[in-house]
């Protein structure tokens, strides 16, 4: 089995490192020096797993060879150029997006006629270096068919991921899980980015807990108007996550702390635009979306 993992942030690195134990893995990076570090040193995975994976890597898609599965796991802002780089390549592969927000599948679908799977992941980690990722939360990756694929295809990839030591589940319809995660991320990531608080008990109690609850309710109203049923209840996901005993730093908080572009367009933008399309007022999410974008503008 040949797997190309496109994008080697935290999630891409966790998938690539683990899959390299059961498949031939090649990693597509944005920066050449990132690929060099992976090839020369291997990819160290610490935390809940502990090993160093040997894999191929390049910033040039033509050097990666053919693939049976292409996993797209880049940051939202890198998606368009990365998808453009996949066009005309990897014939015969099934492409799976593992992205936050809504609409990543459509961006990739526009670039080629591969069979497509769509995935959301709830696992998390911390990227310590180009060649070192720590596996922190061992929650599952959920996979469903998107275009030209079946639940059985999703299950085959889920089984591959499980055999590599990560958690994965296949679903006939991924939309409920995607909506739950979208509402959860749009709320928790933006509140964390604006306050500087990691995802801790403050999100489930007092005035901030009330705000989080109200934001989740706005999100649920959008999902209902869009005709989507929800998977897990985003508020319960939030409460559960704050009780894990150690506080998680959402990626949007890490991004604003490092003054990097965030995924606010893909996450909060998706939700606010879906609300507009469906005529649902979301004043609180609209406020958070404007505030996080302004915070990004404040870097310069």
């Amino acid at each position, binding site marked *: 089995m040949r797997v190309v993992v496109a994008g080697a942030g935290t999630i891409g690195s966790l998938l690539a490192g683990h899959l390299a134990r059961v498949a031939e893995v090649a990693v597509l990076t944005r920066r050449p020096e990132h690929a060099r570090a992976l090839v020369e040193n291997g990819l160290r995975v610490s935390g809940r797993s502990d090993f160093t994976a040997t894999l191929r890597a390049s910033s040039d898609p033509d050097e990666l060879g053919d693939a049976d599965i292409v996993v797209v796991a880049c940051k939202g802002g890198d998606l368009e150029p990365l998808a453009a780089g996949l066009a005309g390549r990897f014939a015969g592969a099934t492409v799976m997006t593992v992205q936050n927000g809504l609409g990543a599948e459509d961006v990739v679908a526009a670039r080629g006629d591969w069979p497509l799977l769509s995935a959301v992941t709830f696992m998390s980690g911390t990227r310590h270096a180009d060649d070192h990722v720590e596996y922190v939360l061992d929650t599952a990756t959920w996979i469903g068919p998107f275009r030209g694929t079946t639940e059985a295809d999703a299950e085959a990839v889920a089984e591959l991921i499980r055999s590599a030591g990560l958690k994965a589940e296949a679903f006939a319809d991924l939309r409920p899980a995607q909506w739950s995660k979208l509402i959860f991320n749009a709320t928790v990531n933006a509140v964390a980015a604006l306050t500087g608080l990691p995802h801790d008990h403050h999100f489930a109690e007092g005035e901030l807990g009330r705000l989080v609850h109200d934001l989740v309710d706005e999100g649920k109203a959008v999902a209902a108007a869009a005709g989507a049923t929800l998977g897990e209840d985003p508020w319960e996901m939030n409460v559960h996550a704050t009780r894990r005993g150690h506080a998680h730093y959402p990626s949007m908080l890490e991004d604003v702390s490092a003054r990097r572009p965030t995924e606010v367009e893909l996450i909060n933008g998706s939700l606010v635009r879906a609300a507009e399309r469906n005529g649902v007022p979301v004043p609180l999410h609209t406020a958070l979306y404007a*505030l996080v974008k302004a915070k990004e503008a404040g870097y310069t």
Partner: protein
Amino acid sequence: MRVAIIGCGAVGSLFAANLAQLEDVEVWAYDAFRDHVDAINEHGLRLSGAGDVVGRLRATADAGELPPCEFGIVATKAMHTDAAIAAAAHAFSDGCVATVQNGLGNEEAIAEHVRRVIRGTTFPAGKLVEPGHVQWDVKGDTTFGPYRDVELPEIEALADACTRAGMPAKAVADARGPQWRKVIFNAATNPVGALTGLTHGRVCERPDLRRLVSGLVDEGKAVAAAQGIELDADPEELIDHAAKPEVAYDHKASMLQDVEARRSTEIDYLNGGIVRFGREHGVPTPLNQAIWALVKGVEQSWTR
């Protein structure tokens, strides 16, 4: 007339040094910052900028030293009101205490400790440059009005002294209009600057952010209207005026300066106050509530 300034930071110093110019006013200042107190006693209190003045007055870091006074002017940050006036209350057993602080709830806090209280709002601004020296950035008016057990002529005597001293002030029967105008302005702009890191002008030139500011203003106006308060000017006009390059485009809101220095902010007395009065009068204030919770979250992130 003997006047004690309670909290002699930037705004308190503007009142203290200017009032000290008057022959018929004896000025005391109580402040916890001992270096500032010592410098005032040694060299006088110097203002520079919009006006150049040196005021000779008695400063103390020990509220017990304050003599009985006809008037007090409280100018601490809102979160220090209670402690400051509790310590100084003995000087005002017959006197009247006015607040010139930001936000909502200061009169109530003062009234816990002294009987006769004057509501006030002031617009001049400055900053402490070094002990004994305050830079006077902006001149502006002050409005006083009764809060409890004070008659208008007494308030007029205080306003007259301020005006003669170069701090134009007027006494009105209902001083809530200017107070709420300033609170709404501050609550709609300060926390947005604090959360985004942007100056006032940059906040206003982003259409989505400017809409959020208007949403906050509208809620504040609704809460004011529910109490029968007539604003003396439209906060929206003040916001757009301040955004002009020659006015305050590059101004970092004091709350942004507080957040950058990791000092507690006045959010409880601005957006928190609007939310509280909104609840009392049945007016929903979801945006102010959200902004309040976010800035409280920022403060909590420093101590977790």
